[in-house]
Protein backbone atom coordinates (compact mmCIF):
# COMPACT_ATOMS: atom_id res chain seq x y z
CA UNK A 1 0.00 0.00 0.00
CA UNK A 2 1.09 3.62 0.12
CA UNK A 3 3.42 2.79 2.97
CA UNK A 4 1.49 0.19 4.93
CA UNK A 5 3.63 -2.71 6.13
CA UNK A 6 6.16 -1.66 3.48
CA UNK A 7 9.37 -2.74 5.18
CA UNK A 8 10.28 -5.90 7.10
CA UNK A 9 10.99 -4.32 10.50
CA UNK A 10 8.12 -1.84 10.65
CA UNK A 11 5.61 -4.45 9.45
CA UNK A 12 6.10 -6.03 12.88
CA UNK A 13 5.51 -2.72 14.69
CA UNK A 14 2.14 -1.42 13.47
CA UNK A 15 1.72 1.21 16.21
CA UNK A 16 4.71 3.05 14.73
CA UNK A 17 4.02 2.22 11.08
CA UNK A 18 3.52 5.46 9.12
CA UNK A 19 1.10 4.63 6.31
CA UNK A 20 0.12 7.83 4.48
CA UNK A 21 0.96 11.52 4.46
CA UNK A 22 -1.12 14.37 3.06
CA UNK A 23 -0.31 18.08 2.76
CA UNK A 24 -2.51 20.60 0.95
CA UNK A 25 -3.85 24.12 1.10
CA UNK A 26 -7.07 23.83 3.13
CA UNK A 27 -9.88 24.25 0.59
CA UNK A 28 -12.30 26.04 2.93
CA UNK A 29 -9.56 28.07 4.64
CA UNK A 30 -6.93 28.84 1.97
CA UNK A 31 -4.67 30.89 4.25
CA UNK A 32 -3.85 27.62 6.02
CA UNK A 33 -2.19 24.33 5.19
CA UNK A 34 -3.44 20.98 6.46
CA UNK A 35 -1.03 18.14 7.11
CA UNK A 36 -2.32 14.66 7.97
CA UNK A 37 -0.19 11.66 8.78
CA UNK A 38 -1.60 8.17 9.32
CA UNK A 39 -0.36 5.25 11.39
CA UNK A 40 -1.57 1.74 12.32
CA UNK A 41 -2.37 0.08 8.99
CA UNK A 42 -5.44 -2.00 8.23
CA UNK A 43 -7.35 -1.52 11.49
CA UNK A 44 -10.24 -3.97 11.47
CA UNK A 45 -13.09 -1.92 12.99
CA UNK A 46 -14.19 -4.81 15.23
CA UNK A 47 -10.72 -5.20 16.75
CA UNK A 48 -11.69 -5.22 20.43
CA UNK A 49 -11.75 -5.49 23.32
CA UNK A 50 -8.45 -3.62 23.15
CA UNK A 51 -9.33 -1.29 20.33
CA UNK A 52 -6.60 0.46 18.33
CA UNK A 53 -4.73 3.36 19.85
CA UNK A 54 -1.51 5.35 19.54
CA UNK A 55 1.60 4.13 21.35
CA UNK A 56 2.52 5.89 24.58
CA UNK A 57 6.10 4.84 23.87
CA UNK A 58 6.16 6.27 20.34
CA UNK A 59 6.78 9.86 19.34
CA UNK A 60 4.81 10.84 16.25
CA UNK A 61 6.36 13.61 14.17
CA UNK A 62 5.53 15.95 11.30
CA UNK A 63 8.54 17.75 9.83
CA UNK A 64 8.74 20.78 7.55
CA UNK A 65 11.79 21.79 5.55
CA UNK A 66 11.39 25.37 4.31
CA UNK A 67 14.92 26.05 3.05
CA UNK A 68 15.60 22.98 0.90
CA UNK A 69 18.34 21.33 2.96
CA UNK A 70 16.39 18.10 3.62
CA UNK A 71 16.37 18.80 7.37
CA UNK A 72 13.48 20.04 9.50
CA UNK A 73 13.29 23.71 10.34
CA UNK A 74 9.88 23.15 11.94
CA UNK A 75 8.50 20.01 13.57
CA UNK A 76 5.27 19.12 15.31
CA UNK A 77 5.64 16.35 17.89
CA UNK A 78 2.68 14.33 19.20
CA UNK A 79 3.24 12.38 22.43
CA UNK A 80 0.43 10.27 23.91
CA UNK A 81 -0.56 9.07 27.36
CA UNK A 82 -3.25 6.51 28.12
CA UNK A 83 -5.51 6.82 31.16
CA UNK A 84 -7.53 3.88 32.51
CA UNK A 85 -10.59 4.71 34.60
CA UNK A 86 -11.54 1.21 35.69
CA UNK A 87 -8.90 -1.50 35.56
CA UNK A 88 -11.31 -4.05 37.04
CA UNK A 89 -13.18 -4.77 33.83
CA UNK A 90 -12.14 -6.21 30.49
CA UNK A 91 -14.42 -3.77 28.70
CA UNK A 92 -13.28 -0.72 26.69
CA UNK A 93 -16.50 0.93 27.84
CA UNK A 94 -19.22 -0.04 30.31
CA UNK A 95 -22.02 1.96 28.67
CA UNK A 96 -22.58 4.46 25.87
CA UNK A 97 -19.75 6.94 25.29
CA UNK A 98 -21.62 10.21 24.79
CA UNK A 99 -18.77 12.64 25.46
CA UNK A 100 -14.98 12.67 25.58
CA UNK A 101 -15.11 12.65 29.39
CA UNK A 102 -17.82 9.99 29.65
CA UNK A 103 -17.44 7.94 32.86
CA UNK A 104 -18.44 4.91 30.77
CA UNK A 105 -15.22 5.11 28.76
CA UNK A 106 -12.45 3.18 30.48
CA UNK A 107 -9.43 3.66 28.29
CA UNK A 108 -8.85 7.17 27.00
CA UNK A 109 -5.86 8.75 25.27
CA UNK A 110 -4.51 12.27 25.52
CA UNK A 111 -1.59 13.97 23.85
CA UNK A 112 0.88 16.77 24.15
CA UNK A 113 1.64 18.80 21.04
CA UNK A 114 5.04 20.45 20.76
CA UNK A 115 6.28 22.72 18.01
CA UNK A 116 10.02 22.73 17.35
CA UNK A 117 11.24 25.79 15.48
CA UNK A 118 14.93 25.69 14.55
CA UNK A 119 15.67 23.54 17.60
CA UNK A 120 13.55 25.49 20.09
CA UNK A 121 10.81 23.39 21.70
CA UNK A 122 7.50 25.01 22.62
CA UNK A 123 4.57 23.04 24.02
CA UNK A 124 1.46 24.28 22.17
CA UNK A 125 -1.02 22.27 24.25
CA UNK A 126 -1.19 19.40 26.72
CA UNK A 127 -3.79 16.79 27.65
CA UNK A 128 -5.68 17.13 24.38
CA UNK A 129 -8.34 14.42 24.15
CA UNK A 130 -8.55 11.81 21.39
CA UNK A 131 -11.93 10.39 20.36
CA UNK A 132 -12.67 6.73 21.05
CA UNK A 133 -12.63 4.16 18.29
CA UNK A 134 -15.98 3.69 16.61
CA UNK A 135 -17.40 0.64 18.39
CA UNK A 136 -21.05 0.44 17.38
CA UNK A 137 -24.50 1.93 18.00
CA UNK A 138 -24.60 0.70 21.60
CA UNK A 139 -21.22 2.13 22.61
CA UNK A 140 -20.65 5.12 20.31
CA UNK A 141 -24.17 6.08 19.14
CA UNK A 142 -23.21 9.63 18.07
CA UNK A 143 -19.73 9.07 16.75
CA UNK A 144 -19.55 12.16 14.54
CA UNK A 145 -20.16 14.39 17.57
CA UNK A 146 -17.40 12.66 19.50
CA UNK A 147 -15.00 13.15 16.61
CA UNK A 148 -15.98 16.82 16.26
CA UNK A 149 -15.30 17.38 19.95
CA UNK A 150 -11.79 16.04 19.40
CA UNK A 151 -10.93 18.83 16.93
CA UNK A 152 -9.06 21.26 19.17
CA UNK A 153 -8.69 24.96 18.38
CA UNK A 154 -5.35 26.33 19.55
CA UNK A 155 -3.90 29.81 19.73
CA UNK A 156 -2.78 31.41 16.48
CA UNK A 157 -5.40 29.74 14.31
CA UNK A 158 -4.04 26.19 14.63
CA UNK A 159 -6.41 23.22 14.70
CA UNK A 160 -5.38 19.73 15.65
CA UNK A 161 -6.91 16.26 15.75
CA UNK A 162 -5.54 12.86 16.68
CA UNK A 163 -7.55 9.67 16.53
CA UNK A 164 -9.20 7.00 14.42
CA UNK A 165 -10.26 7.80 10.84
CA UNK A 166 -11.51 5.88 7.85
CA UNK A 167 -8.73 4.81 5.51
CA UNK A 168 -8.61 7.31 2.67
CA UNK A 169 -6.09 5.54 0.47
CA UNK A 170 -7.64 3.29 -2.14
CA UNK A 171 -5.76 0.55 -3.94
CA UNK A 172 -6.30 -2.89 -5.44
CA UNK A 173 -3.80 -4.64 -3.20
CA UNK A 174 -4.88 -8.16 -3.95
CA UNK A 175 -4.24 -7.74 -7.66
CA UNK A 176 -1.16 -5.53 -7.57
CA UNK A 177 0.74 -7.85 -5.26
CA UNK A 178 -0.25 -10.77 -7.49
CA UNK A 179 2.61 -10.17 -9.92
CA UNK A 180 1.71 -6.57 -10.72
CA UNK A 181 -1.76 -7.33 -12.01
CA UNK A 182 -3.93 -4.31 -12.86
CA UNK A 183 -7.43 -5.74 -13.29
CA UNK A 184 -8.57 -3.29 -16.02
CA UNK A 185 -5.58 -4.42 -18.12
CA UNK A 186 -5.20 -8.00 -16.95
CA UNK A 187 -6.22 -9.29 -20.37
CA UNK A 188 -2.77 -8.04 -21.40
CA UNK A 189 -0.95 -9.48 -18.36
CA UNK A 190 1.47 -12.37 -18.71
CA UNK A 191 -1.08 -14.46 -16.72
CA UNK A 192 -4.00 -13.17 -18.75
CA UNK A 193 -7.57 -13.09 -17.46
CA UNK A 194 -10.58 -11.13 -18.63
CA UNK A 195 -10.31 -7.45 -17.77
CA UNK A 196 -12.40 -6.38 -14.78
CA UNK A 197 -12.95 -3.41 -12.44
CA UNK A 198 -10.55 -2.76 -9.59
CA UNK A 199 -11.25 -3.82 -6.01
CA UNK A 200 -10.50 -1.42 -3.16
CA UNK A 201 -8.99 -3.76 -0.58
CA UNK A 202 -8.51 -1.01 2.01
CA UNK A 203 -12.22 -0.20 1.96
CA UNK A 204 -13.69 -0.02 5.45
CA UNK A 205 -10.44 -0.34 7.37
CA UNK A 206 -9.42 2.31 9.86
CA UNK A 207 -6.18 4.16 10.58
CA UNK A 208 -5.03 6.48 13.34
CA UNK A 209 -4.37 10.02 12.10
CA UNK A 210 -2.51 12.99 13.46
CA UNK A 211 -3.78 16.10 11.67
CA UNK A 212 -2.88 19.74 12.00
CA UNK A 213 -4.09 22.85 10.22
CA UNK A 214 -1.76 25.84 10.52
CA UNK A 215 -1.51 29.29 8.93
CA UNK A 216 0.80 29.24 5.92
CA UNK A 217 2.94 32.01 7.35
CA UNK A 218 3.79 29.75 10.30
CA UNK A 219 5.56 27.42 7.87
CA UNK A 220 7.49 29.73 5.54
CA UNK A 221 11.16 30.40 6.18
CA UNK A 222 10.65 34.10 6.89
CA UNK A 223 7.08 34.24 8.16
CA UNK A 224 5.87 35.64 4.85
CA UNK A 225 2.48 34.84 3.36
CA UNK A 226 3.04 32.91 0.13
CA UNK A 227 1.42 34.64 -2.84
CA UNK A 228 3.74 34.06 -5.79
CA UNK A 229 4.01 30.45 -7.10
CA UNK A 230 7.39 31.26 -8.65
CA UNK A 231 8.87 32.41 -5.32
CA UNK A 232 11.06 29.67 -3.71
CA UNK A 233 9.74 30.78 -0.31
CA UNK A 234 6.30 29.49 -1.31
CA UNK A 235 7.51 25.87 -1.33
CA UNK A 236 7.81 23.62 1.70
CA UNK A 237 8.83 20.00 1.97
CA UNK A 238 6.95 17.79 4.41
CA UNK A 239 7.57 14.35 5.83
CA UNK A 240 6.36 12.48 8.88
CA UNK A 241 7.97 9.90 11.10
CA UNK A 242 7.68 7.76 14.20
CA UNK A 243 10.44 7.31 16.73
CA UNK A 244 11.07 5.04 19.68
CA UNK A 245 13.51 5.24 22.56
CA UNK A 246 16.87 3.70 21.88
CA UNK A 247 16.61 1.29 24.85
CA UNK A 248 13.62 -0.66 26.15
CA UNK A 249 13.55 -2.86 29.24
CA UNK A 250 10.61 -5.25 29.37
CA UNK A 251 8.90 -6.64 32.47
CA UNK A 252 8.65 -5.26 36.02
CA UNK A 253 6.90 -2.12 34.81
CA UNK A 254 9.31 -1.69 31.94
CA UNK A 255 11.49 1.26 31.15
CA UNK A 256 12.52 3.28 28.12
CA UNK A 257 15.62 5.40 27.96
CA UNK A 258 17.90 7.16 25.54
CA UNK A 259 17.34 9.44 22.58
CA UNK A 260 14.48 9.02 20.15
CA UNK A 261 15.41 6.84 17.19
CA UNK A 262 13.43 7.07 13.96
CA UNK A 263 11.82 3.73 12.99
CA UNK A 264 9.41 4.85 10.26
CA UNK A 265 9.11 7.78 7.86
CA UNK A 266 7.05 8.89 4.92
CA UNK A 267 7.22 11.70 2.38
CA UNK A 268 6.09 10.82 -1.14
CA UNK A 269 3.66 7.89 -1.30
CA UNK A 270 4.79 4.42 -2.41
CA UNK A 271 8.52 5.16 -2.32
CA UNK A 272 9.66 2.70 0.32
CA UNK A 273 6.92 0.41 -0.96
CA UNK A 274 7.95 0.21 -4.61
CA UNK A 275 11.18 2.12 -5.30
CA UNK A 276 13.35 0.91 -2.42
CA UNK A 277 14.33 -2.79 -2.51
CA UNK A 278 13.90 -5.22 0.39
CA UNK A 279 17.49 -5.05 1.53
CA UNK A 280 17.41 -1.27 1.98
CA UNK A 281 13.87 -0.67 3.28
CA UNK A 282 14.65 -0.78 7.00
CA UNK A 283 17.64 1.53 6.52
CA UNK A 284 15.49 3.91 4.50
CA UNK A 285 12.97 4.11 7.34
CA UNK A 286 15.74 5.08 9.75
CA UNK A 287 17.45 7.59 7.48
CA UNK A 288 17.08 11.35 7.28
CA UNK A 289 15.75 12.81 4.01
CA UNK A 290 18.97 14.85 3.90
CA UNK A 291 20.84 11.60 3.30
CA UNK A 292 18.62 10.25 0.52
CA UNK A 293 21.30 10.61 -2.16
CA UNK A 294 22.44 7.15 -1.01
CA UNK A 295 19.24 5.76 -2.58
CA UNK A 296 19.55 7.69 -5.88
CA UNK A 297 20.23 4.60 -7.99
CA UNK A 298 16.83 3.11 -7.16
CA UNK A 299 15.08 6.24 -8.44
CA UNK A 300 17.19 6.46 -11.61
CA UNK A 301 16.50 2.86 -12.55
CA UNK A 302 13.31 1.74 -10.79
CA UNK A 303 12.74 -2.00 -10.75
CA UNK A 304 9.08 -1.60 -11.70
CA UNK A 305 9.99 0.16 -14.98
CA UNK A 306 11.87 -2.95 -15.97
CA UNK A 307 9.09 -5.28 -14.86
CA UNK A 308 6.19 -3.65 -16.72
CA UNK A 309 7.38 -4.72 -20.22
CA UNK A 310 7.89 -8.26 -18.91
CA UNK A 311 4.53 -8.50 -17.13
CA UNK A 312 2.63 -6.95 -20.05
CA UNK A 313 4.35 -8.37 -23.15
CA UNK A 314 4.25 -6.08 -26.16
CA UNK A 315 2.49 -3.25 -24.31
CA UNK A 316 5.55 -1.18 -23.35
CA UNK A 317 8.04 -1.45 -26.23
CA UNK A 318 9.40 2.08 -25.77
CA UNK A 319 9.76 1.68 -22.02
CA UNK A 320 11.63 -1.57 -22.61
CA UNK A 321 14.22 0.32 -24.66
CA UNK A 322 14.53 3.20 -22.17
CA UNK A 323 17.78 2.50 -20.36
CA UNK A 324 18.79 6.06 -19.47
CA UNK A 325 18.68 7.29 -15.89
CA UNK A 326 15.19 8.55 -15.06
CA UNK A 327 15.86 12.23 -14.49
CA UNK A 328 12.12 12.85 -14.58
CA UNK A 329 11.54 10.64 -11.54
CA UNK A 330 14.50 12.17 -9.72
CA UNK A 331 12.99 15.64 -10.23
CA UNK A 332 9.44 14.69 -9.29
CA UNK A 333 10.41 12.57 -6.29
CA UNK A 334 13.69 13.96 -4.94
CA UNK A 335 14.07 17.68 -5.76
CA UNK A 336 10.67 18.90 -6.84
CA UNK A 337 9.82 20.17 -10.32
CA UNK A 338 11.81 23.26 -11.36
CA UNK A 339 10.29 26.28 -13.09
CA UNK A 340 9.98 26.02 -16.86
CA UNK A 341 8.84 22.39 -17.00
CA UNK A 342 5.12 22.82 -16.28
CA UNK A 343 3.86 26.31 -17.21
CA UNK A 344 3.10 28.42 -14.15
CA UNK A 345 4.20 25.76 -11.69
CA UNK A 346 7.22 24.77 -9.65
CA UNK A 347 7.81 22.99 -6.35
CA UNK A 348 11.58 22.85 -6.56
CA UNK A 349 13.46 22.88 -3.26
CA UNK A 350 17.03 22.93 -4.59
CA UNK A 351 19.71 20.42 -5.41
CA UNK A 352 19.54 18.41 -2.17
CA UNK A 353 18.10 15.00 -3.02
CA UNK A 354 15.50 14.19 -0.37
CA UNK A 355 12.23 12.34 -0.19
CA UNK A 356 9.66 14.96 0.79
CA UNK A 357 6.09 15.79 -0.10
CA UNK A 358 6.63 19.21 -1.66
CA UNK A 359 3.87 21.78 -1.57
CA UNK A 360 3.79 25.12 -3.34
CA UNK A 361 1.54 26.96 -0.90
CA UNK A 362 0.91 29.86 -3.31
CA UNK A 363 -1.14 27.59 -5.60
CA UNK A 364 -4.78 28.10 -4.49
CA UNK A 365 -7.16 25.18 -3.97
CA UNK A 366 -8.84 24.01 -7.15
CA UNK A 367 -12.53 24.76 -7.65
CA UNK A 368 -12.77 21.59 -9.72
CA UNK A 369 -10.14 19.22 -8.34
CA UNK A 370 -8.95 16.31 -10.43
CA UNK A 371 -7.74 13.22 -8.55
CA UNK A 372 -5.02 12.78 -11.15
CA UNK A 373 -3.57 16.13 -10.03
CA UNK A 374 -0.85 17.97 -11.90
CA UNK A 375 -0.67 15.60 -14.88
CA UNK A 376 -4.40 16.26 -15.36
CA UNK A 377 -3.87 20.03 -15.32
CA UNK A 378 -4.82 20.51 -11.64
CA UNK A 379 -1.76 22.17 -10.07
CA UNK A 380 -3.33 22.07 -6.59
CA UNK A 381 -3.04 18.28 -6.57
CA UNK A 382 -0.36 15.62 -6.35
CA UNK A 383 2.60 15.88 -6.72
CA UNK A 384 2.03 19.42 -5.53
CA UNK A 385 1.45 18.13 -2.02
CA UNK A 386 -1.21 15.47 -1.76
CA UNK A 387 -4.95 15.79 -1.08
CA UNK A 388 -6.83 12.99 0.66
CA UNK A 389 -8.58 11.94 -2.54
CA UNK A 390 -5.66 12.15 -4.97
CA UNK A 391 -5.11 9.03 -7.08
CA UNK A 392 -1.41 8.71 -6.31
CA UNK A 393 -1.23 5.09 -7.43
CA UNK A 394 -2.27 5.91 -11.00
CA UNK A 395 -0.05 9.01 -11.14
CA UNK A 396 3.05 7.13 -10.01
CA UNK A 397 2.31 4.10 -12.19
CA UNK A 398 2.08 6.36 -15.23
CA UNK A 399 5.24 8.25 -14.33
CA UNK A 400 7.25 5.06 -13.85
CA UNK A 401 5.82 3.70 -17.12
CA UNK A 402 7.44 6.63 -18.92
CA UNK A 403 4.61 9.13 -19.22
CA UNK A 404 6.70 11.89 -17.61
CA UNK A 405 10.03 11.13 -19.29
CA UNK A 406 9.38 13.62 -22.15
CA UNK A 407 9.64 16.36 -19.51
CA UNK A 408 13.40 15.82 -19.58
CA UNK A 409 13.80 14.29 -23.06
CA UNK A 410 11.40 15.57 -25.69
CA UNK A 411 12.54 12.98 -28.23
CA UNK A 412 11.05 10.14 -26.18
CA UNK A 413 7.57 8.93 -27.10
CA UNK A 414 5.76 7.21 -24.22
CA UNK A 415 3.93 3.98 -24.93
CA UNK A 416 0.21 4.52 -25.47
CA UNK A 417 -0.60 2.53 -22.34
CA UNK A 418 1.60 4.70 -20.11
CA UNK A 419 -0.93 7.50 -19.81
CA UNK A 420 -3.81 5.08 -19.22
CA UNK A 421 -2.44 2.97 -16.40
CA UNK A 422 -4.65 2.62 -13.34
CA UNK A 423 -5.71 -0.03 -10.89
CA UNK A 424 -9.27 0.91 -11.75
CA UNK A 425 -10.11 2.82 -8.57
CA UNK A 426 -10.93 6.43 -7.71
CA UNK A 427 -12.01 8.63 -4.81
CA UNK A 428 -15.52 7.22 -4.94
CA UNK A 429 -14.00 4.03 -3.53
CA UNK A 430 -14.19 5.55 -0.03
CA UNK A 431 -15.55 8.73 1.58
CA UNK A 432 -14.12 11.96 2.93
CA UNK A 433 -15.17 15.04 4.85
CA UNK A 434 -15.34 18.52 3.30
CA UNK A 435 -13.70 20.01 6.37
CA UNK A 436 -10.88 19.34 8.81
CA UNK A 437 -9.73 16.60 9.41
CA UNK A 438 -10.98 15.67 5.91
CA UNK A 439 -10.62 11.88 6.29
CA UNK A 440 -14.01 10.28 6.90
CA UNK A 441 -15.39 8.97 10.17
CA UNK A 442 -14.37 5.35 10.71
CA UNK A 443 -17.02 2.70 10.31
CA UNK A 444 -17.93 0.89 13.51
CA UNK A 445 -17.11 -2.65 14.40
CA UNK A 446 -20.83 -3.40 14.45
CA UNK A 447 -21.11 -2.29 10.80
CA UNK A 448 -18.32 -4.56 9.62
CA UNK A 449 -19.05 -7.02 6.85
CA UNK A 450 -16.88 -10.12 6.53
CA UNK A 451 -14.45 -10.52 3.69
CA UNK A 452 -15.66 -12.85 0.97
CA UNK A 453 -14.52 -16.43 1.51
Amino acid at each position, binding site marked *: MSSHREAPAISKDPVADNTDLYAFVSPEDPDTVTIISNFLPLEAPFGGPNFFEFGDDVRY*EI*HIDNDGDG*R*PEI*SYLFEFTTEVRNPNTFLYNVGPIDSLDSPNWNRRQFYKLTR*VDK*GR*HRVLASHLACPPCNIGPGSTPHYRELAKAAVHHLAGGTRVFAGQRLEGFYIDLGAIFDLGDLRPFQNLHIAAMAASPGVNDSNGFGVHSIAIKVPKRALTRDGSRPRNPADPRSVIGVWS*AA*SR*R*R*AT*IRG*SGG*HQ*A*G*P*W*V*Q*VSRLGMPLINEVIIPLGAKDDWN*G*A*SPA*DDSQFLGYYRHPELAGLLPVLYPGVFPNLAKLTAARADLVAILLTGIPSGIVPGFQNFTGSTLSDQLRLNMAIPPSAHPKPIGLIGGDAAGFPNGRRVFDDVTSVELRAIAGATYPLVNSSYTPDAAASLLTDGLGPNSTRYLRHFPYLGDPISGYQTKPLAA
Partner: protein
Amino acid sequence: MRQNRYEEEPAVSELTRRGFVKSSAAAAAGMTVAGALRAEEASAEAGQEPLVAYVSDPGKGEISVMRGDREVRVRDKKLAARIYDAGR
Protein backbone atom coordinates in the same frame (compact mmCIF):
# COMPACT_ATOMS: atom_id res chain seq x y z
CA MET B 1 19.76 4.73 12.43
CA ARG B 2 20.23 8.46 12.62
CA GLN B 3 18.85 10.97 15.01
CA ASN B 4 16.89 13.97 13.87
CA ARG B 5 18.77 17.21 13.92
CA TYR B 6 16.86 18.71 16.79
CA GLU B 7 18.03 15.91 19.09
CA GLU B 8 21.41 17.15 20.14
CA GLU B 9 23.51 14.32 21.44
CA PRO B 10 25.65 15.15 24.49
CA ALA B 11 29.40 15.23 24.01
CA VAL B 12 31.12 11.91 24.61
CA SER B 13 33.21 13.34 27.39
CA GLU B 14 30.26 14.74 29.31
CA LEU B 15 30.11 11.88 31.75
CA THR B 16 33.26 10.97 33.58
CA ARG B 17 33.98 7.46 34.76
CA ARG B 18 33.30 8.48 38.37
CA GLY B 19 30.03 10.12 37.37
CA PHE B 20 29.04 7.05 35.47
CA VAL B 21 29.72 4.85 38.49
CA LYS B 22 27.60 7.09 40.71
CA SER B 23 24.73 7.12 38.26
CA SER B 24 24.86 3.41 37.62
CA ALA B 25 24.88 2.63 41.31
CA ALA B 26 21.70 4.62 41.79
CA ALA B 27 19.90 2.08 39.66
CA ALA B 28 21.18 -0.87 41.65
CA ALA B 29 17.70 -2.16 42.42
CA GLY B 30 16.76 -2.48 38.79
CA MET B 31 19.97 -2.88 36.87
CA THR B 32 22.04 -6.01 36.77
CA VAL B 33 25.27 -4.19 36.05
CA ALA B 34 24.87 -1.90 38.98
CA GLY B 35 25.18 -4.78 41.38
CA ALA B 36 28.84 -4.96 40.58
CA LEU B 37 29.43 -1.39 41.61
CA ARG B 38 30.36 -0.38 45.10
CA ALA B 39 27.43 0.79 47.15
CA GLU B 40 29.46 3.53 48.82
CA GLU B 41 29.79 5.33 45.49
CA ALA B 42 26.07 5.82 45.17
CA SER B 43 24.85 9.27 46.03
CA ALA B 44 21.51 10.74 46.88
CA GLU B 45 22.14 13.33 44.21
CA ALA B 46 21.93 10.64 41.55
CA GLY B 47 18.18 10.35 42.13
CA GLN B 48 15.86 7.44 41.63
CA GLU B 49 15.44 7.36 37.88
CA PRO B 50 16.67 4.10 36.36
CA LEU B 51 19.19 4.17 33.58
CA VAL B 52 20.38 1.73 30.98
CA ALA B 53 24.06 0.96 30.43
CA TYR B 54 24.99 -0.88 27.26
CA VAL B 55 28.46 -2.26 26.80
CA SER B 56 28.58 -2.05 23.04
CA ASP B 57 32.17 -3.21 22.63
CA PRO B 58 33.65 -4.88 25.74
CA GLY B 59 37.05 -5.22 24.12
CA LYS B 60 37.39 -1.49 23.52
CA GLY B 61 35.61 -0.58 26.74
CA GLU B 62 32.83 1.29 24.91
CA ILE B 63 29.76 1.90 27.07
CA SER B 64 26.53 3.76 26.22
CA VAL B 65 24.69 5.21 29.19
CA MET B 66 21.04 6.12 28.55
CA ARG B 67 19.00 8.13 31.01
CA GLY B 68 15.87 10.09 30.16
CA ASP B 69 16.23 11.16 26.55
CA ARG B 70 19.99 11.34 26.70
CA GLU B 71 22.75 8.99 25.64
CA VAL B 72 26.35 9.44 26.68
CA ARG B 73 29.15 7.27 25.34
CA VAL B 74 32.20 6.60 27.44
CA ARG B 75 35.31 4.50 26.88
CA ASP B 76 36.64 2.80 30.01
CA LYS B 77 38.16 -0.65 29.64
CA LYS B 78 38.34 -1.38 33.37
CA LEU B 79 34.75 -0.43 34.00
CA ALA B 80 33.55 -2.34 30.94
CA ALA B 81 35.43 -5.38 32.17
CA ARG B 82 33.83 -5.17 35.63
CA ILE B 83 30.35 -4.90 34.11
CA TYR B 84 31.13 -7.73 31.74
CA ASP B 85 32.29 -9.91 34.60
CA ALA B 86 29.12 -9.13 36.53
CA GLY B 87 27.10 -10.51 33.65
CA ARG B 88 28.83 -13.89 33.68
